């Protein structure tokens, strides 16, 4: 009665034992990255960058993240398992900074440097943060918008969030740049659609109704930007639209001319810089506290440029 079950169990254990040596090569520095996600193309691009850095610098890199961005507890479990492996350093993109503090403290106590990436961690434990400088990126969006509308007239912002770091930075980065460098441009509305396409569509239509002479709208993330495109289409209007991030709908809108262009982050760069900083920190070398991983402006003219295409995703 016991035999078959016991055999199955033994076989499973043996195969695990056999698989193990492949997993961790001896003597190499090991750096796990715990991300906010795994399946989205954005995260796959971050992973690609991390893997490349691992190869270039001769370290073992692993990349893991929960199925969706609500699974705060799963991410904590992943962080715990990563710490158990006694890594040289660790990369972490917190879903919820508060939940992770006890484990980050544990890492700090064990002398394992933590590198925050993507949106970072609200704590002073990470020795560095590799993320997009959203303020500078949104300022570039403002400059492009100004150029496209002839440096004067009315524009609006459809933002995705008024509390999150990215939401605030992109809104202020755009608005402040307009105020400083393009005084003839007036921002007539800043509305929040939660990154929801439909909500952003309704908001856009309301803005167009209230301001018939508006010249352009900036959508601060993928969902907002697509919402603006839809709203402008539904209202039958023709204004300058500037977006953020990529995704199939946004790329299509840029190709067919509905959207003038957009800012893309550099997910590959985020992964690469995180690993690079982790290796430096593990060796005790100084690292910059804030690492700007870069961003690009893309439009119809350069969307198929290999350098740009590499950081865009569907």
């Amino acid at each position: 009665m016991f035999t078959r079950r016991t055999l199955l169990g033994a076989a499973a254990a043996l195969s695990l034992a056999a698989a193990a040596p492949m997993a961790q090569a001896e003597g190499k520095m090991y750096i796990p990255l715990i991300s906010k996600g795994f399946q989205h193309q954005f995260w796959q691009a971050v992973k690609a960058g991390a893997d490349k850095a691992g190869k270039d610098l001769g370290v073992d890199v692993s990349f893991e993240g929960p199925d969706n961005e609500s699974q705060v507890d799963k991410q904590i479990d992943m962080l715990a398992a990563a710490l158990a492996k006694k890594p040289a350093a660790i990369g972490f993109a917190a879903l919820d900074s508060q939940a992770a503090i006890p484990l980050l403290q544990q890492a700090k106590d064990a002398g394992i440097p933590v590198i925050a990436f993507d949106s970072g961690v609200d704590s002073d434990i990470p020795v560095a943060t590799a993320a997009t400088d959203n303020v500078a990126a949104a300022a570039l969006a403002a400059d492009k918008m100004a150029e496209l509308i002839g440096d004067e007239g009315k524009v609006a912002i459809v933002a995705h969030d008024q509390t999150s770091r990215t939401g605030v930075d992109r809104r202020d980065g755009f608005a402040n740049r307009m105020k400083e460098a393009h005084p003839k441009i007036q921002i007539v509305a800043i509305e929040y659609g939660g990154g929801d396409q439909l909500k952003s569509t309704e908001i856009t239509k309301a803005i167009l109704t209230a301001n018939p002479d508006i010249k352009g709208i900036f959508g601060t993330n993928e969902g907002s930007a697509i919402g603006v495109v839809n709203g402008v289409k539904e209202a039958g209007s023709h204004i300058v639209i500037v977006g953020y991030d990529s995704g199939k709908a946004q790329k299509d809108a840029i190709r067919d001319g509905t959207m003038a262009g957009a800012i893309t982050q550099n997910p590959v760069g985020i992964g690469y810089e995180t690993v690079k900083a982790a290796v430096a920190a593990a060796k005790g070398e100084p690292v910059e506290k804030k690492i700007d991983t870069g961003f690009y402006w893309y439009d119809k003219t350069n969307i198929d440029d290999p350098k740009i295409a590499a950081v865009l995703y569907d």
Partner: protein
Amino acid sequence: MTTTTAKPVPAARKGGGAQQKLLAFASLIVLVIGFSLASPNFFQVANIMAILQATSVNGVLAVGVTLIIITGGIDLSIGTLMTFCSVMAGVVLTWWGMPLVLGVAAAIATGALCGLISGTFVARMKIPPFIATLGMMLMLKGLSLIVTGTKPIYFNSTPGFTTIAQGSLIGAVIPEFPVPNGVLILFLVAGAAAWVLSRTVLGRYTFALGSNEEAVRLSGVNTAAWKMAIYALSGAICGIAGVLIASRINSAQPALGLGYELEAIAAVVIGGTSLAGGRGTILGTLIGALIMSVLTNGLRVLSVAPEWQTVVTGAIIIVAVYADQLRRGRAA
């Protein structure tokens, strides 16, 4: 009358149950030994504590749903119910500023009430459990988002809330083994549920309903009332899970919870409880939950790619249930 109908059931379960527990326990040991051999980092106090901590929430959920599965039912709403309960704790503690005890009570009461509602759908309105609890799952998910306005509720204003799951009473006595309180709570809940199943009338009817509901009904028992009681008890246990997860992550995350029901059900099934009802043990479920988290943690410690972790976990569930069936086929 009732005792005569119910009596053969515990007898039948005892024979199979003991062996099943042994087999499940043996698999757990084999896994632990396998991982320990494969990686020196696996069998370390900190990692074992991490595994236990990771088991606590899923374990409590699994214990709750074991009761329902033994009656021959299923509850798909446990994951989102857990979340809804932690949201209610957040409302009472953070928004209303009430004392800690009331927040915990609110979570458990919410769970019991929602369980009672599910039980009413199943027992009185005769909606199949799969459908009734699928409906509840979606309703509760939506309600959590509505109540919170889709934003997490933090428990920073309630001192001591995080110690419910993260603190360690044992660690205060034996610093070498800082077993998290969440794990103690899991064992307490499991012990209580095992006691209910083996020593109370409610427990006897739980098995009887799963074995032959019609016979129980014909013997003059109000089956609907007992079934509702079991769903309510299971709901209350989900409330405890809600407190645990909220305490662990110091917040009620309204979007969390979907998918947790399947992990809990997997733990129950690995532990040898039959989805057909009438057979199952809490100890088996506990071991099943430990197998799940040992597997997840072990594969991570071995740096197995996450895609393959999912594949292996799925395969283990199939193997566990198939082995169980082989054994039962021969026994019969």
